[in-house]
């Protein structure tokens, strides 16, 4: 076991995990209809590629990713596509559950680009909550040197036990998935960070640990304390590395994954199974059969909860996620998404409504529990006063929104809500300020697209001419006039365009990982422009090569 390095602050809320860990893992019944939202991940929504009436099978691609930060969506039942709109695709199940999986791959013998493509076309995203596309995260090696893969199994939020049950039931597969990701990102060691309140998962891991190859796997059992499952806090605790502000774990050589994601990645590669189901914790006093369930994505939450024995008379509200960071659902008529990890059907006694807020007495309880070492009460004053300069200088954007401050506040002030509002306001201002810039970038993209289309047309014409060459000598004479120096400068241009694409990808991937919940339209536009430029350079180069070849072709006969 590693020596645990501490992070500041933290709280000890009641865990209430027993309700969902006492019963074994179950499979929710096949839904008769699924609603698959086009945006179940961070970034842009996917673009539908099916139409009403199409027949699909489990695993059929129904929406294609749009842009870099986006993810494919697959059918999760077999049947007929119903309504397709800008938000979601409805599928009526035929009850056959026939599959359309991708061919299985052995990750140990397959090259990295193929594996990355597989993760991409399987629609795997981070299942811990942010839903960041896994294939982008796996490409980190192009931008950063990674030495450690951390399996974030801390699961510090009360109630949630999906990772616990995943590890209890599939310790081998999770480790295999971790080895796969470690191999892709070049990590030499794997550390499993797990809180000491999960003895069964720890036992299961200890049993399987020695057989895991090739990266060295270490199990680090850490004391239970909220929010040790927060990425930054966990990395500090396990490795004593501090992720810089506005930075990524990759900046300190670390990649973090949740066990469920690793499992999904392995299934995508080994079994060719796209992300069509996930484990969801169903818990709360208002359901009679709490536990963890394998659930097809797109299943209605209402159906799911009534299957688990929802008692509507006792229900006060359903919470999506954990009680610290989750949100109250407005309606139960909403589907399970890739990021749905936990549903709490709470009774009024269990999670009472928030008490009436009273004035801040500056007691400082919030400061002593803040894991990011901020001054929550100062931020509270500045947020209410909309003092944006002070908010920024007091590091509002370093807040991880863990809710520890709200939890201990004796005046019951919903501090995190204030911070979220303030962040939203500040971001909106930034977006407004960048609008002119974005318009310029969109214009540049259009120019690049037109140039690419022109180059494409030219290349096609050239190819046609080359094809008809024997009958038309003049045309080939014309093309021989292209000097070889031109070819070299085109090659240089193409390399530069490639580098530009890589840079745009890096910038976008970075921004999207830092703020997975935010749109990054401008960066997507910049990337698309770079891609158009690259395509144009490709065509021009191909065209020049064609014409350079032409004289030799003429000489040979």
């Amino acid at each position, binding site marked *: 076991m590693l020596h645990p390095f501490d992070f*500041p602050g933290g709280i000890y*809320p009641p865990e209430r995990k027993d309700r969902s860990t006492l019963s074994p893992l179950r499979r929710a019944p096949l839904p008769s209809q699924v609603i698959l939202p086009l945006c179940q991940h961070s970034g842009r929504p996917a673009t539908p590629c099916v139409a009403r009436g199409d027949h699909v099978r489990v695993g059929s691609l129904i929406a294609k990713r749009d842009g870099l930060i986006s993810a494919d969506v697959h059918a999760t039942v077999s049947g007929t596509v119903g309504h397709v709109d800008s938000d979601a695709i409805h599928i009526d199940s035929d009850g056959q559950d026939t599959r359309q999986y991708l061919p299985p791959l052995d990750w140990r013998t397959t090259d990295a680009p193929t594996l990355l493509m597989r993760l991409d076309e399987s629609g795997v995203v981070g299942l811990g909550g942010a839903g960041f596309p896994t294939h982008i995260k796996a490409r980190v090696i192009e931008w950063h040197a990674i030495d450690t893969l951390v399996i974030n199994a801390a699961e510090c939020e009360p109630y949630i036990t999906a990772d616990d049950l995943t590890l209890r039931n599939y310790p081998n597969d999770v480790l295999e998935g971790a080895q796969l990701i470690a191999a892709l990102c070049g990590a030499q060691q794997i550390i499993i960070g797990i809180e000491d309140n999960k003895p069964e998962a720890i036992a299961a891991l200890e049993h399987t640990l020695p057989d895991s190859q090739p990266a060295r796997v270490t199990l680090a059992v850490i004391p239970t304390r909220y929010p040790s499952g927060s990425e930054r806090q966990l990395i500090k605790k396990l490795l004593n590395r501090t992720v810089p502000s*506005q930075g990524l774990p990759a900046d300190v050589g670390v990649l973090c994954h949740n066990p469920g994601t690793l499992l999904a990645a392995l299934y995508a590669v080994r079994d060719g199974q796209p992300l069509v189901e996930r484990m969801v914790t169903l818990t709360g006093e208002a359901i009679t059969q709490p536990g963890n369930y394998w659930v097809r994505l797109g299943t209605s939450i209402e159906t799911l909860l009534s299957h688990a024995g929802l008692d509507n008379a006792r229900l006060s509200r359903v919470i999506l996620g954990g009680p610290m960071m989750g949100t109250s659902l407005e309606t139960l008529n909403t589907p399970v998404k890739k990021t749905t990890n936990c549903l709490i059907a709470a009774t009024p006694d269990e999670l009472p409504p928030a008490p009436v807020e*009273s004035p801040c*007495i*500056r007691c400082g309880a919030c400061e002593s529990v803040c894991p990011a070492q901020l001054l929550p009460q*100062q931020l509270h004053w500045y947020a209410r006063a909309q003092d944006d300069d002070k908010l920024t200088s007091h*590091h509002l954007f370093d807040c991880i929104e863990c809710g520890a401050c709200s*939890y*201990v506040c004796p005046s019951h002030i919903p501090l995190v809500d204030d911070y979220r509002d303030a962040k939203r306001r500040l971001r909106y201002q930034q977006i407004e300020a960048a609008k002119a810039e974005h318009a310029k970038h969109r214009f540049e993209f259009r120019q690049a697209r037109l140039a690419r289309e022109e180059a494409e047309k030219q290349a096609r014409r050239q190819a046609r001419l080359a094809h008809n060459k024997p009958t038309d000598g003049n045309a080939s004479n014309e093309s021989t006039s292209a000097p070889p120096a031109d070819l070299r400068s085109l090659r240089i241009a193409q390399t530069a365009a490639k580098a530009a694409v890589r840079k745009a990808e890096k910038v976008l991937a970075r921004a999207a990982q830092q703020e997975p919940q935010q749109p990054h339209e401008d960066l997507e536009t910049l990337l698309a422009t770079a891609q158009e430029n690259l395509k144009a350079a490709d065509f021009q180069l191909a065209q020049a090569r064609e014409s350079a070849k032409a004289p030799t072709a003429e000489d040979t006969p």
Partner: protein
Amino acid sequence: MSMFHASQVSASSAKSTTPATASLMRWVVIATLPGVLAMTYYFGLGVLSNIALATIMGALLEAGMLRLRNRPIAPALTDTSALLTGVLLGASLPPASPWWLIGVGMIAAVVIAKQLYGGLGHNPFNPAMAGYALLLVSFPTYMTLWAPPQPLISDTLWAQILGTLPTSQLDALSGATPLDAFKHKAEGLSAEQFWLSAPLPEQTLAAWYSISLAWLAGGVLLLFKRIISWHIPIALLGSLVALATLFHLLDPNCFASPLFHLLTGAALFGAFFIATDPVSAATSQRGKLLYGMGIGVLIIVIRNLGGYPDAVAFAVLLMNLCVPLIDLYTVPRPQGHSKGAPGALR
């Protein structure tokens, strides 16, 4: 949005954290009991009459001000902060102070220092100490009339409270506090000679020692219940003892011993009950240490070099003034920020 709140779930939580604001205030009131009882034992019912009058007036003034400000009255009264201000000011005044003196003090505390600044949580100055300081500079005669230890019910209790006792008789009643006596001892008298001359009525020193220890007991209760953090009291008492020792070593005849400073004035009362008022104190932990140290230093400086025998109120108010500055300079470095990176100070 956090659905969990410590005060709602703490019953089931193994390690409970801070209780709600009203309960915080109530605990502070409870913790004043040992000190208040010890004072009553030595100085008579005049102590309780002070507190009773101050709390009743505090509640009325608070309600009246909230009404004028069009704010809900019930929640503000149930948070018991006005009650606490009354107890603290009542315990600071000379026993059996006249009602109007208490009234003026409470108006300064609740109306001016607290409500006019925006009510609970917005007052830059400690309300009780603002009231006390105003009375001390405005009515020095009444404020320095600290009678020697006396029976529970003195003959003149009612006359004193009603303010009908003529000033000439008041003087006869009054004695000096130990700090006062030592400060105004005849020049050239050595400390040893001073104490041999029996400068104070019987039991006076014992009374002040016991009362200070009773305040300490209440303070320990607050620390133990985690109502207050250790930073301010420890920093305050530590710097007070350190500076008092330094002065005492320089000239033991002129400057009293650190133990004398610690036990005969309002030092312990101030350290645990006044300086720890979270609203008017510094916020970060480093800031609290600085704030506490500042008060300790100021108490000794004023006592030894200034014109007042005790100085808790002025020291606290002066440091209240420094709080915005302390807060500005003690913003902690958040995780992930490197040393020397631009912070709150830009």
